[in-house]
């Protein structure tokens, strides 16, 4: 079997994404492989995604350090409309409604986690290498100084409203961003050379929403995991149901949702 790891990844999916044909198709000679950034071995210290609780009260996630002994290969730019459209033409990705006139050199937006996953499976088959969505910590590692979590300050946890207010302030702290997708590179590069991190397109990760309890000893216990909701990263971190393409209609009554949903892929191990 040419791509055993991909098969494992696909088998783990709960969604019914057809992938076997794409996997067996010979790599297309015409396929343009997007530029990859090769991050050297390193580490990231960051507050992981999820709902953390201590003694039954929500708390900010304790910082966690993860080592990337073998570095990380990640797409320099978000998957573009032109790239995604090849998958649509191959009938492996659903056609999506673009917010404006089609433009090949703009990131694809308005895609759900399921769409992004379908693209990863299709693209892996075409390229003959395993590509997948990054985990949340891989995204944080690659985003570097552009990484921002939910921005919840440590506050008096006996008063739940203070947390809600802090979150609201944090989400609206940014000046409003124009929602119109821009040409790749318009939001500049971070110190790792990745383009458009935390621009106006949020990116799907593969990380599921987890609820984590912290014991007095500091030991963490994952209590429940919900893979129907995935972590989305961008100007702030958020959690979006996997079939949502436009997060503006997938949010709660209060708070600011991502302006656009897109993605980039990493090389599988």
């Amino acid at each position, binding site marked *: 079997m040419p791509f055993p790891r991909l098969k494992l990844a696909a088998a783990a999916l709960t969604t019914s994404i057809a992938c076997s044909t794409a996997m067996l198709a010979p790599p297309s000679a015409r396929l343009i492989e997007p530029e990859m950034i090769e991050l050297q071995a390193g580490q990231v210290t960051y507050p992981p995604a999820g709902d953390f609780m201590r003694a039954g009260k929500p708390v900010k996630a304790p910082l966690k350090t993860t080592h990337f002994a073998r570095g990380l290969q990640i797409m320099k730019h978000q998957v573009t409309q032109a790239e995604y459209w090849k998958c649509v033409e191959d009938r492996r990705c659903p056609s999506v409604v673009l917010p404006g006139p089609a433009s090949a050199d703009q990131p694809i937006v308005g895609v759900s986690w399921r769409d992004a996953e379908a693209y990863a499976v299709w693209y892996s088959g075409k390229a003959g290498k395993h590509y997948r969505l990054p985990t949340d910590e891989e995204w944080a590692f690659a985003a570097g100084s552009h990484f921002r979590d939910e921005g919840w300050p440590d506050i008096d946890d006996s008063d739940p409203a203070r947390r809600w*207010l802090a979150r609201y302030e944090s989400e609206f702290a940014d000046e409003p961003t124009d929602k119109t997708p821009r040409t790749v590179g318009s939001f500049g590069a971070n110190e790792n050379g990745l383009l458009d991190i935390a621009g106006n397109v949020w990116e799907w990760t593969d990380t599921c929403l987890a609820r984590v309890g912290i014991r007095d000893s500091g030991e963490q216990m994952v209590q429940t995991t919900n893979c129907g909701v995935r972590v989305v990263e961008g100007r702030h971190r958020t959690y979006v149901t996997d079939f949502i393409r436009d997060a503006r*209609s997938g949010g709660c*009554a209060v708070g600011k949702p991502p302006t656009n949903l897109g993605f980039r892929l990493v090389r599988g191990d």
Partner: protein
Amino acid sequence: MTSLTKAMITRRTAIIGAASATLVTPMPVAAHDLALERENVEPVAPPFVHPHEQATKQKPKIIAFRMETQEKETVIDDEGTKLQAMCFNGSIPGPMMVVHEGDYLELTLVNPATNSTPHNIDFHAATGGLGGGTLTLISPGEQVVLRWKATRPGVFVYHCAPGGLMTPWHVVSGMSGAVMVLPRDGLKDGDGKPLHYDRIYYIGENDFYVPRDEKGKFKSYGSPGEAYADTVKVMQTLTPTHVVFNGRAGALTGKAALTANVGDTVLIVHSQANRDSRPHLIGGHGDYVWETGKFSNRPETDLETWLIRGGSAGAALYTFRQPGIYAYLTHNLIEAVLLGATAHFKIEGKWDDDLMMQVKPPGPIAALSK
């Protein structure tokens, strides 16, 4: 020509005729006929309201306002959809004007020469003359002064009503606002006990009908006139493309969220000049609600959702008891979320565990004990 068309034209000619008469022989401003004190009030853009007494010991006065009609392109959602708006004093909704029962409201209405169409104003609170509409129709480059006596306490809509199809078109282009006529001795509950507010917010709701192109994208136009024919077609569907508070989706959220503190009593005045709405404060209530907006009636108490009838304003008094973020929306949730009719209240203060607490945090489902 049908008799209806004939009637419309006849009426329109009459109205234009009246406007011309005003132009030729300017009516004397009659305010000096009244030996009353005058007070000039600067209108304030919503959601805020100009300073005013809640109850007054003063004698009735002439409260004078000046407003310009304005035609301008305005953005009505986060996607940048543009509306060829028409509005009073530059804001959607127009400013809320507050007087007391027995006062005289005097309005100088200005139609700047830069505008393209006639405008007027119909005050639902006023008596006679189509609410003032027949006496205020002015062409670009004109102004008019109208005075009317505030005889009925309550919150009332005002809107532009130039006649025929022009009226709904001007209204759904943004030309409406509200007047509040307070009882001289202030608001009262059903037992006659005085009610006060620490803050007042005026929320004007609009339904907009923006035409789309053949690909389904919202169209933009160079002027109200160019937008007119397409807009009327969308209006005829009775299905708005936008239902928003204060002129655009998100106008009262984020940094523009309405603010108050725990313990503050807030009067929320809500107007809708064209279409029914059902305000609801998520996590709060209407302690005292004048659903139909008229203060001589007993306010209803402890409401969850109330109805603002199209063409009316209502008022809800609420004392915030818990801090946090509240959504104030129309409880047609599709309109609130997809079409834009959501505002936020940001309330600071101390949480009250007695009113609500999470007894057990979310976690795995526990086995039932036998």
